[in-house]
């Protein structure tokens, strides 16, 4: 009962905050009455409405944004040429790239993390490399990738791969390294083979930590894709943002921001659900 009412109150507060933000935004972006000197009508016809009134073009109002979002959601899968596709298609391109890059990273990171976690020697030897490469921004990788791989599609997948590999690698190694010694000793006493130990004892024990690493990684991958696509262009939600930046269309950019956030949330929740499946009570 108490929990319910807390949820209810939190929901209410969320709605209030939302209304307040939108309200302030609306007031702040309300078109002001023309204040500048009267413009030559011929001139006014050639410039935007704000410039004709003697000011800079303003931020769009929440109502403008709402209309733009509706326009995109009503027709998300149109194709009007190779450089103009619906927002649904762009999101699908980005998701495809993220899943590919992230999947490849998982395929490499989890076995490698296992290896590193099981051998303190390897862990120590590889640690400096991991620590140096981990904080590198995706945009720093991009020129190198384009130069060496010579293919922009593979380059953007590579950038996702290289940025999302580290949390999984470190978490897997950490999870494997911190499996309770008693469990390993029990397995050894029962003369369980090394492969069986790995799959039946270590993997289930480390699974929650590995899943946490994957969850961090997919978040990073989704952050990276927007930056990578803005740089490389062509397709994807990052390209959409860049293309609308070209047009200085803030309403379209805000739409894209909201959708990017929504998809990121869904990815995160999906992995959180998977993580729940592998947790165990101690």
């Amino acid at each position: 009962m108490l929990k319910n009412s807390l949820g209810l109150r939190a929901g209410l507060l969320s709605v209030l905050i939302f209304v307040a933000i939108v309200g302030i935004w609306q007031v702040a972006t309300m078109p002001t009455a023309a204040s500048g000197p009267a413009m030559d009508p011929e001139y006014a016809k050639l410039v935007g409405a704000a410039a004709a009134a003697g000011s800079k073009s303003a931020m769009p109002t929440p109502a403008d944004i709402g209309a733009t979002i509706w326009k995109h959601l009503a027709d998300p899968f149109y194709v009007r040429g190779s450089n103009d596709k619906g927002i649904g298609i762009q999101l699908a391109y980005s998701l495809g790239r993220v899943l590919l890059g992230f999947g490849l990273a998982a395929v490499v990171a989890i076995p490698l993390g296992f290896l590193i976690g099981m051998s303190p020697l390897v862990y120590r030897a590889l640690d400096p490399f991991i620590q140096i490469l981990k904080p590198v921004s995706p945009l720093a990788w991009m020129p190198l990738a384009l130069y060496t791989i010579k293919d922009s599609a593979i380059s953007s997948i590579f950038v996702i791969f290289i940025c999302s590999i580290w949390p999984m690698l470190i978490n897997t190694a950490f999870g494997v390294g911190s499996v309770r010694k008693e469990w390993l000793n029990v397995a050894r006493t029962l003369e369980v083979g090394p492969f069986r130990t790995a799959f039946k004892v270590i993997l289930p024990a480390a699974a929650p930590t590995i899943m946490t690493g994957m969850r961090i990684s997919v978040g990073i991958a989704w952050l990276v894709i927007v930056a990578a696509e803005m740089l490389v262009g062509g397709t994807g939600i990052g390209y959409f943002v860049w293309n609308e930046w070209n047009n200085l269309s803030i309403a379209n950019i805000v739409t894209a921001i909201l959708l990017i956030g929504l998809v990121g949330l869904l990815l995160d929740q999906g992995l959180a659900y998977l993580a729940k499946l592998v947790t165990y009570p101690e």
Partner: protein
Amino acid sequence: MFKDPFDPKALLGRGGCSCGGNHAQADHARLTAAAVPAGEEDRWNRVVDAAVLRAVFPVDAQRRQFLKTVGAATAMAAISSVLPLGAAREAFAQGGAPEKKDLKVGFIPITCATPIIMAHPMGFYSKQGLNVEVVKTAGWAVIRDKSLAREYDASHMLSPMPLAISLGVGSNPVPWTMPAIENINGQAITLANKHKDKRNPKDWKGFRFAVPFDYSMHNYLLRYYVAEAGLDPDKDISIRSVPPPEMVANLRADNIDGYLGPDPFNQRAVFDGIGFIHLLTKELWDGHPCCAFTVSKEFATQNPNSYRALLKAIIDATAYAHKQENRKEIAKAIAPANYLNQPETVLEQILTGTYADGLGGVKKDPNRIDFDPFPWNQFAIWIMTQMKRWGQLKGDVDYAKVASEVYLATDTANMMKEMGLTPPDPSKKTIVVMGKPFDPAKPAEYVNSFAIKRS
């Protein structure tokens, strides 16, 4: 420029027309009236016929004798009975079959790329039997890397870029060629509205400027302009390389004081009430090159027919864009999100040259931007003198040799002749920048003649 050699009334000298166009007065009516597709076929047919006649009668006197005796119509009929003229005409119009039909051409969404872009919606590529995909690209460094990676078969570049790539300045040296210029003029210096009373460049000390790329006419022209006013572009102002779409956003955020950039972003700053047009670059050098259509040497030699078809489409589209009366239609064709993604009125103001200047006035300059494909070698030499002047190019350069290897004036001239157009005389180009004449035969002296320079 696009003279019909078979027209007895055509004046072959290179005088200018009173309309300001790059053609003779006598050609004005025809050039500004006839639509391309209709005139074209006739022109090509005449070229083929002439070639066949020349082949049948190698001695001109015999041809004239024969024609006089039987009449032109009978002669043609007689020849076509043994030689399928129709098929010859068709084969010529298509060139050889292109080795590669599906091509990718990269472009940056600016009005300089107009011929490359409009050739897609307006069917200039498909007329040559090509299936071209025009791919919007995020910036000059990316278009360079994608081109070097062979992802694009041809691409839109800034006219100094093929020189820089061939010379290995800013990248590994790869032989790159530029068979056609896209646009001449068409750039501007835009300043933030707060600098309305600082119109003299001498007052610009400490200004922060943006140009699209280090290897761009924009960079060289801005440096030239402020240096003429006595400012050192490396010490007294700062110039940074900013992708064109970000220029307006940066100007709005007061991150820069102005830029010498490509359109539509000069006009866009006016449209959004952020800046004003200080001057058009044509006021610095009327007829300067800006962007270019480029291919790697490898593509041109491996796919000669595709290359020729592509170049034909570009020359064709450039000729179409050159005509004032087509400009509104072009603005409409390239405005959608698939191409430039800009308000149509902005593009129309740029292409027609009737524009709001951002200071409350409406200006008219039909040559604000113009389109002329001929890759004068003198342009390349001037660009290299500026690369040298600002220290981008070290050591000795054989200016004329590099220019002729990269700017394929001969190729373009031959192609124009084949298409029945009259190429200009490649040696006759005068370049005057801000009142100072440039002698392409003496590039080193030119570099040395400047007071402010790095080398």
